[in-house]
């Protein structure tokens, strides 16, 4: 492997600093790949194991599930990508009433799990009728669109914020209107960011069980559970999971290749405030209305409804322990997943087979439903137990397995922000420090880490929120008497006590609120000279 070959993607990035530890990095990358891939590999391995009672039901479930998932990706996922990209463009480069407020409020829906949105919208009544009629296929597409656009918004906003003012101003000087600049300059330049955020949103849709099940849809994810629960065939479930994993790997590879061929020159590196377009009055209000609709539908309306239910039932005070458990688990899980994501991002920047493999391993974890990755982790545990390496799933081992599953499942969500941060490291600064006699570690601590720190924080915050919302792996792998907010919300919701489920659902959102606001303000400050 050509370890020192500069990456095609960013020829000026990082190579000098990290070359000191290329052996170390390679070892870590291998470890990270194994950690991320083990549950997915266990799933694929178990699926390939022959089993006597193979049925024809499997083929029908797989076909219908694939059609359902693709349809939801095209509608809900497509809308999420469009909403996220347009919203990011508006708040980054246009002036309109409420822009400052929307800049951070647009991230809010990220804290609400899809299943919570689905429950909230289905139960919502106003004067005996549903204010937003949400049901069936279009209901699910709606929930995905308004719940997942922040993934695209965050990535696209970071991309727009780091764009060269020169390219945009050159376009304006040449007489392009706001819309033209968006379509012909801004959008193409931000494409990698939008693609990365879009990929996260699409993988969320592929992995989502709660909302799709609630709306009675056949997707790959619900087909997995139908095989497992209704047909009592974990083996068939694993086979469908394996198909989902392989499809995800296929798409991830295509996406990497498509992105790898395009080169995006950074343009000027002298930062200036981005020029902001003055829209005409109608467009100004339309922009405000658009952002308001996203925030209201994605966060204010469903959470207001949950808050009303929670007040009606008044059980918020019982939630101190689950709240603490959730925050501690999400905190510990985010740190471990962050370490993995950093290694994967660094290895991917170096390129080579190992870098690609670690990216794919992380991506596979993210695209599979949490319960499937948890089943894979359980299987690995089962092997280890039969081989005599470990005993029962006591509290220690259960939490270890759970944190590992979180890391394997979510590392991919942390890679993108770190990758964006690493691209800011400049070879020139590093070379200067080297000429001045700074050691490898000194350069790492004084130059690289401070530059990459905001990205690491951003990544950790995203991971924290993801783990906070996670349900199935927590449900199956946690120790005795250890409930989290998501588990409590599930327990009540599965018992059809939505009133009681409202308070823990709301608390998931509250716990995720602070990190999301920090995250949002971090992006706003990421551009030197930003107001």
């Amino acid at each position: 492997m050509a370890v020192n070959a500069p990456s095609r993607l960013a020829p000026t990035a990082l190579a000098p600093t990290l070359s000191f530890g290329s052996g170390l990095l390679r070892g870590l990358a291998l470890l990270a790949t194994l950690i991320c891939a083990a549950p997915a590999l266990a799933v694929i391995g178990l699926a390939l194991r022959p089993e006597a009672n193979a049925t024809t039901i499997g083929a029908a479930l797989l076909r219908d599930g694939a059609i359902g998932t693709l349809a939801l990706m095209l509608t809900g996922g497509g809308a999420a990508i469009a909403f996220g990209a347009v919203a990011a463009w508006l708040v980054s480069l246009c002036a309109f009433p409420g822009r400052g407020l929307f800049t951070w409020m647009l991230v809010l829906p990220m804290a609400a799990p899809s299943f919570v949105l689905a429950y909230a919208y289905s139960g919502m009544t106003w004067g005996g009728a549903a204010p937003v009629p949400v049901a069936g296929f279009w209901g699910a597409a709606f929930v995905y669109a308004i719940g997942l656009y922040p993934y695209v918004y965050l990535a696209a906003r970071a991309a727009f914020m780091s764009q060269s003012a020169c390219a945009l101003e050159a376009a304006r000087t040449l007489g392009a209107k706001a819309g033209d600049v968006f379509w012909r300059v801004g959008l193409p330049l931000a494409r990698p960011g939008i693609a990365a955020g879009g990929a996260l949103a699409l993988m969320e849709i592929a992995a989502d069980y709660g909302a799709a099940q609630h709306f009675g849809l056949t997707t790959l994810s619900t087909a997995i559970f139908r095989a497992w629960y209704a047909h009592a065939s974990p083996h068939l479930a694993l086979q469908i999971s394996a198909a989902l994993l392989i499809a995800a790997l296929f798409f991830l590879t295509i996406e990497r290749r498509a992105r790898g061929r395009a080169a995006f020159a950074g343009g000027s590196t002298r930062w200036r405030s981005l020029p902001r377009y003055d829209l005409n009055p109608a467009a100004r209000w339309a922009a405000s209305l658009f952002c308001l609709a996203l925030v209201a539908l994605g966060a204010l309306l469903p959470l207001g409804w949950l808050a009303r239910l929670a007040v009606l039932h008044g059980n918020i005070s019982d939630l101190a322990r689950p709240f603490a458990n959730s925050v501690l688990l999400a905190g510990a899980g985010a740190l471990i997943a962050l370490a993995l994501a950093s290694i994967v991002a660094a290895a991917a920047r170096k390129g080579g087979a190992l870098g690609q493999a670690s990216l794919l391993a992380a991506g596979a974890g993210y695209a599979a439903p949490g319960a499937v990755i948890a089943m894979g982790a359980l299987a690995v545990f089962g092997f280890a137990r039969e081989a005599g390496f470990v005993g029962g799933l006591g509290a220690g081992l259960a939490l270890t397995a759970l944190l590992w599953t979180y890391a394997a499942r979510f590392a991919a969500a942390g890679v993108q922000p770190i990758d964006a941060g690493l691209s800011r490291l400049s070879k020139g600064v590093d070379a200067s420090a080297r000429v001045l006699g700074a050691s490898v570690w000194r350069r790492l601590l004084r130059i690289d880490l401070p530059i990459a720190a905001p990205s690491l924080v951003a990544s950790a915050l995203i991971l924290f929120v993801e783990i906070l919302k996670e349900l199935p792996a927590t449900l199956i792998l946690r120790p005795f008497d250890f409930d989290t907010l998501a588990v409590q919300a599930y327990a009540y919701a599965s018992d059809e006590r939505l009133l009681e489920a409202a308070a823990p659902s709301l608390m998931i959102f509250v716990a995720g609120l602070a990190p999301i606001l920090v995250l949002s303000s971090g992006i706003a400050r990421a551009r030197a000279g930003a107001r």
Partner: protein
Amino acid sequence: MQLRDVRNSWESQPLPYLLNRRGFALGGSAATLAACAPSERLYVNVYSARHYDADRTLYAAFEEATGVAVRVLPANAEQLLERLRAEGEATEADLVVAADAGNLWRMQDANLLAPVTSAALSAGVPQRLHDPAGHWWGFTKRARIIVYRKDAVAPDEIASMDNLTQPRFSGQVVARSSTNTYNLSLLASRIERLGADNAWDWAAGVRANFARDPQGSDTDQIKAVAAGLAQVAIANHYYVLRMARSDDNAERESAAKVGIVFPDQAGAGAHTNISGAGVAAHAKRPERALQLLEYLVSDDAQRLLAPLNDEFPIRPEIEAAPELAALGAFREEDVALDALGRRQGEAAAIYEEVGWR
């Protein structure tokens, strides 16, 4: 015994030490929080697929009476089964609790439950409501019933589950997904009583009368009927009672618009199912698991549970909650509940074929 237990409970909680050694500061504090289980007290471990607050009350009363603390791991039945399977002999679970005989049968079928019998269990649980070999024992009962909108349907129009297939209800029936175990058991018992062809025709007939594709929970079906989306729904009996006393005005209004019918009173009787429990095959504290199981079917526990959860006590002698008693006595379908498990695969295949997803 006492000594062994103390050591066991310590061994199951090695986490603070383990994580501190590895230097995970945050993980360490999480573990301290996790290690809330008693290390001095006696305890019994329960894997439970029931999430009712009422069960916690029951466990607290058990601890009060016996000094044995109940540690619970609630999750859904299928996931608990996979965990038990992966844990094998090393499992920490002593008693396994699940709603629906079908789920209990699956655990038994995977050799994860031990057969146990005792005089108290045999006296406490009617024969039909436990596994003949004692792998699982019911401790509460629920009926699957028909809910109708009072201003659209007369109760005698839905005297039987068979009526839901009539043209009279074309486009007027709602039911939840057949992935749900309640619906699987409902069809499994029909297969057991009347054969697969009859069950196929019934499922296809109901499917043809659906007002919409199955979605949401039993409660959502009841709300759909109240809102005028359909006239009749299939649901478990306790959901309507619960909605009638909801803190939410809208739910109370919905409940007021609907009535319930125990179907097939002139025929085979209404489909009833249980919540039950069995001792884990590799329980480390089997005596205490049995002790808890016997407590669950005891008069004390049955009287405590009856008013809390709108379920029927497992024995007719125990008086049901007033709202339940007000519904009157009803005739139950006479099907041995282990058949619900045995027939579940067939039921799932039939639902798949007729397109009731």
